């Protein structure tokens, strides 16, 4: 639930954690440059704790900032932030004893693009949350049901609360019943090969290769990304469709069995590409073939880090 009380509790908790020396740093959200934005916040002292906010625009996946941290970190975590942190724990990128997961009750984050359809977002001076609606203050008051303006990734999310947390602030959100989280993928699979190819070609034409999707992704942590490598240079640097499409295939593939579908890539994309489609497809396959859902248990081996003797092998040509 989004409420002022939660914000107060977060600030109080952050303050006491920092004062008691349980953590050196709290990663959370603070108010952004405009009313409908938040920015990642790095709180190192108790006085700064009052910066922290909690509202439906807390959209960044904060686990991105866990990479390379030496200090003890408290992470404000929605379901997806916590799951990304679990993947990081599985991959031994961070130590469990240097990470304190502060679970927060998420009710899905708001997609500004969807807001833009019904309101001029530049004219919004303030907003508040009233039960299940978002109230925007422009010249007049605009009321929108939260459910209608949620991000696509939040629409298919059935794990809004952190599966692993050391502290949980507030009451856990009720988990929505998602009918079929892979409905979109399935309908896309139903299209013909040529149609699918055309779709991805168009996607590649749209892409400007800014790599915002990679940078926003909590799973992309390589010090030198394979895309940036020049010796050998695996990826063409041109704007040719083939180069771009290969980038997208590999970007998604590198997240196979790891992607927790936080939607950070789609949100980061300045060209409005639905990057989640490829990720969702891989998620579906991994779930169907290996019965594995990433980001739930830090002690579990990731899908590609283990195998079974009788794994399916339909791709194998028998001759």
């Amino acid at each position, binding site marked *: 639930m989004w409420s002022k009380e939660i914000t107060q509790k977060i600030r109080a908790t952050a303050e006491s954690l920092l004062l008691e020396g349980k953590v050196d740093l709290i990663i959370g959200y603070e108010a952004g440059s405009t009313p409908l934005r938040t920015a990642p916040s790095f709180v190192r002292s108790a006085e700064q704790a009052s910066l922290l906010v909690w509202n439906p625009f807390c959209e960044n996946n904060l686990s991105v900032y866990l990479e390379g941290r030496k200090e003890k970190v408290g992470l404000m975590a929605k379901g997806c932030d916590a799951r990304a942190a679990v993947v990081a724990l599985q991959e031994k990128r961070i130590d469990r004893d240097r990470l304190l997961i502060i679970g927060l009750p998420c009710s899905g984050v708001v997609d500004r693009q969807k807001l833009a359809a019904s309101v001029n977002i530049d004219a919004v001076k303030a907003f508040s949350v009233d039960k299940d609606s978002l109230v925007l203050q422009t010249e007049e008051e605009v009321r929108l049901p939260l459910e209608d303006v949620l991000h696509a990734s939040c629409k298919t999310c059935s794990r809004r609360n952190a599966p692993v947390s050391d502290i949980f602030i507030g009451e856990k959100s009720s988990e929505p019943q998602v009918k079929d989280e892979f409905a979109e993928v399935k309908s896309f699979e139903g299209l013909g090969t040529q149609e699918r190819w055309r779709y991805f070609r168009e996607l590649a034409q749209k892409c400007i290769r800014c790599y915002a999707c990679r940078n926003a992704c909590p799973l992309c942590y390589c010090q030198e990304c394979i895309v940036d490598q020049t010796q050998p240079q695996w990826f063409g640097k041109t704007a040719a469709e083939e*180069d771009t499409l290969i980038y997208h295939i590999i970007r998604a593939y590198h997240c196979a069995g790891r992607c927790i579908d936080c939607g950070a890539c789609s949100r980061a994309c300045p060209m409005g590409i639905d990057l989640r489609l490829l990720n969702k497809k891989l998620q579906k396959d*991994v779930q169907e*073939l290996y019965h594995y859902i990433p980001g739930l248990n830090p002690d579990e081996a990731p899908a590609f880090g283990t195998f079974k*003797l009788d794994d399916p092998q339909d791709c194998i040509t028998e001759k």
Partner: protein
Amino acid sequence: MSVEKKKSQQQSWEPKIVAFLCNWCSYAGADLAGISRIQYPPNVRVIRVPCSGRINPVFILKALQSGTDAVLVSGCHPGDCHYVSGNYYARRKFEIFDHLLDFVGLEKGRVFFSWVSAAEGENFGHLIKHVVDEVKKLGPAHKLVKTIEGPVANCQQTMVEG
């Protein structure tokens, strides 16, 4: 290009296939096929890798992008891996990657995965025949193939042909 020239090129077209073979089984299998004088089409260019687990999907995409008509990846049968479990991990990667390529609309029959042991020289011959037949049915690859006029293209062409 004139129509006749194009036609004659199509008729004389032979698929180029890159085969990634694992050092311990499939490469030895290909070797055995050679020693045993087993006839198979000369369309494959073999690249030896230490294990099927060494295959990075980027290799496959890069090969297709550089103008090969198909890619074959072959390793030891499950249970026979020289490194005990390399091919089991590879199997998961291949299966998921195969699904993904299909999803983005790459036609079936451009990427093959197989298991060939060091004793299966004859099977290797059969496999290559099968792959070449399939690729001939499909014709030259167009999807993912990077075609740029000028020096870059020429350089890539020499790489593939050379």
